[in-house]
């Protein structure tokens, strides 16, 4: 792998970001709207005395942490779609770049945008609702890593499907994380789910992170399982998704890169 090539691909997506209002809206507008609406809702519930003060941080914390898997997935699939929409795939792959370098670049751009989006959202949460996500402590770092890794899993899986079936299934780029979100327990404890859904949630690594976050907010320590087991799951899923992705790339090379549309 060559760093300059990874930088080149990163630059391609970075320049696209600064010229595209859609991408900028995704990074700043939607997190802001989500925080505003959920912040007001939770503040209202707290003011009625029907729930505790910790609800605001629990809900807003869910929104903020959800940025990581969402952006991790979104950046991979939308980056691929951008190159399909622009008929630019050949410009990328008829060059010395290795497929693994493209993979690393889109992972990196996911991290870059997640950090910016999360930092922006965390400031908004403090300014509007005095909800400071950083009170969760250093554990935020490994959690952010786990969450974004889970986003990559979905990103690579959806990118594989888009490579095989083209832009006609591009809606998956926006849908896929929403499908998994009910099992992730972003805003509620997994215990409220029906038992069959709890079984599924057991295999959704990010559900442990959100459970852990609520534990800490409630003044309890986060269980070690909130790091270890989801990490194992994430690594297994990541390897499977990468295997699937490489399979799809080999398949489109047999059909020809310009045939993907």
């Amino acid at each position, binding site marked *: 792998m*060559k760093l*300059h*090539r990874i*930088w*080149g*691909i990163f*630059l*391609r997506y970075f*320049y*696209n970001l600064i*010229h*595209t209002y859609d991408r900028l809206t995704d990074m700043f507008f939607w997190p802001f709207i989500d925080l505003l609406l959920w912040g007001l809702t939770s503040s209202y519930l707290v003011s009625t005395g029907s729930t505790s003060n910790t609800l605001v941080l629990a809900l807003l914390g869910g929104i903020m942490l959800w940025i990581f898997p969402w952006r991790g997935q979104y950046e991979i699939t939308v980056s691929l779609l*951008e*190159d399909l929409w*622009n*008929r*630019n795939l*050949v*410009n*990328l*792959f*008829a*060059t*010395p*770049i*290795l497929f693994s370098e493209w993979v690393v670049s889109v992972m990196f751009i996911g991290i870059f945008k997640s950090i910016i989006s999360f930092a922006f959202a965390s400031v908004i949460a403090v300014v509007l609702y005095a909800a400071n996500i950083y009170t969760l402590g250093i554990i935020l770092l490994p959690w952010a890593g786990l969450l974004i890794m889970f986003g990559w899993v979905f990103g690579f899986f959806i990118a594989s499907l888009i490579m095989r079936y083209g832009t006609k299934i591009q809606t998956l780029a926006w849908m896929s994380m929403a499908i998994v979100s009910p099992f992730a327990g972003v805003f509620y404890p997994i215990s409220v789910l029906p038992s069959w859904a709890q079984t599924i949630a057991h295999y959704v690594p990010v559900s442990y992170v959100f459970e852990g976050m609520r534990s800490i907010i409630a003044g309890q320590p986060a269980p070690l399982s909130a790091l270890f087991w989801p990490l194992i799951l994430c690594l297994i899923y990541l390897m499977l998704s990468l295997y699937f992705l490489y399979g799809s790339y*080999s398949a489109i*090379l*047999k*059909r*020809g*890169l*310009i045939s993907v549309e």
Partner: protein
Amino acid sequence: MTILEVKNLKKTFKKSEIIKGLTFDMQEGEILGILGPNGAGKTTTLQMLLGILTPTSGTIKVFDKDLATHKSEILEKMNFSSTYVDMPWRLTVKENLEWSSWLYEIPDRRKRLNQIKELFLLEKQWNQPVSALSAGQKTRVNLARSMINFPSILLLDEPTASLDPEVATYIREFFANQRKTYNKSIILTSHNMSEVESLCDRVLILKDGMIVGNDTPANLAKKIEYSHLRLRVTKNVAELDKLISLRKLESVQEDKQYTITIKETLLPLFLYEITKKNVGYTEISIDKPNLEDYFMKIAKSTVETKSRGDMS
């Protein structure tokens, strides 16, 4: 020195063999044209040479290395320009060339970008988004991108399509000069026969996925036996018509202008005969067969074969 060696290259799509065992090579500093009717396999061949389409069988060796196993290393010294490919249209010309430059090992990137800007006359478009450019300007940017790594081998698919004649001539001269000065090797596909004739040292003619011609443009043209004799007839038109009929020649008549297709070997005799019959004419010209005639012959036979296939 042979820098590209293709051996028995085949490509099958859904049980249909599109490329049927191509074998050819290219020397350093050579400009090789690939011609063929639509569907002959030109773009498929170029895609395989760029490593963006996996051959079903056969080998491609570039700089004596197998493309399948040394793709990254080989593509460092190769580049391409194709009408099938666009650039990210929201990005400016400068941004597009800049990110592309980072994909290659270029010692002084800034200097190289400035050279490219001047060489391809892109000063005015430099900070414009690609979406704001005309088709010709986009082609120029694509060609500029193909030179960003100063490649030893360049694959150009319809390089001057949509360029205005002045810029097309400049681009043709530029590539001819690149070969002359830096000994670059170029593979070129084009539907502009005079471009191929003037630029290429050798031409491969593809038909139905096979090479049916592999020679210099002049030698390929020599394979056509017929010339076109043009006459502006002023006297004894009937005698000329009789002679054409007697010799069973093809002719097209517009007013007094005759275009007669005739075997080159019969030409002196025919001219003697029309003089003998006292056929008067004020203008005469003989069009020798050229690459376009050869290409048309191949293309015509392809259409006829396909028509027969459709009928059966």
